[in-house]
């Protein structure tokens, strides 16, 4: 990626994050109705990101080793293992399946 594009991404994301972290301390009396709405965004976006990661270049769901990684990550999360363990185990499983079955 070109340096100027990367810089734009970093500065744009930084500005958004700064604003969102500053709103609470500066306006603690924001109506709960508004903040309640925003709690739906994170689960919806994360689930969509999982879904998008599992689609092929044509946008259609594509079953490959990533599905196994997702299932393992879900199981380990349900067992309350730390985040990093779930991620590394998912990647290792994908690498293992690829090496063994030449997927």
């Amino acid at each position, binding site marked *: 990626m070109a340096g100027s594009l990367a810089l734009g991404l970093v500065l744009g994301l930084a500005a958004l994050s700064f604003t969102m972290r500053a709103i609470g301390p500066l306006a603690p009396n924001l109506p709960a109705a508004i903040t309640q*709405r925003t709690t739906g965004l994170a689960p919806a976006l994360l689930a969509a990101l999982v879904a998008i990661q599992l689609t092929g270049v044509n946008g259609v769901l594509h079953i490959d080793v990533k599905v196994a990684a997702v299932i393992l990550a879900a199981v380990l999360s349900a067992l309350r293992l730390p985040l990093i363990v779930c991620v590394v185990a998912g990647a290792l499983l994908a690498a293992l399946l690829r090496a063994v079955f030449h997927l």
Partner: protein
Amino acid sequence: MRAPRSVREILLTSAPIALAVFVFAVSFGVLAITARIPGWAAVLMSALVFAGSAQFAALGVLTAGGGIVTAMLTGGLLNLRYIATGIAVARSLPGGPLRRALLGQLVVDESYAMAAGAGEPGRPDRRTLLVTGASLYTVWVLGTLVGTLLGPVLGDPRRLGLDAAFPALFTALLWPMLSARHAVRCAIGGALVALALAPFTPPGVPLAGAAVVGLWLAR
């Protein structure tokens, strides 16, 4: 009321979290390199954004073929939850508006959780919040730097399963949120809308659709 804890004591208590955040930051640096982000930009992002899920989401969008604006907005929307967290810690932050806004930047999920645990109901412990936040910030930036240096020597990211790390990570971030019933509804709705839109639209549209569904179903 509990006796105030010393800085040393707080650092010792948060050490396991700091270690996990460091490893997480290393993996962010490595994945940023495999997503073709320049190393300096990855380190700068960690220094200025300091939010794992938002930063990984931006990378995830880029690796799925999305553009810069989609990556930025997806990461930004994930950080909307910090408005609620910011309100929760507002009473614990000292000083005038500028100082409070700047100290608010040290709020991440982990530092908030530690401070809420150490404080009284409705008033997270200030010192725990700031000390934990500052130590996690340090390991987050350092870990990213280490990752960007490691990335180029690791070899083919697919052979190492690094492409599968993204969906695994988003699953692991999502899972603890599903204890709330409305979150389950939002997650299912978001995933279905994204899958329905993905074959017909450019990469940004499915995520935008999921965001709308999330706001709509959050009631």
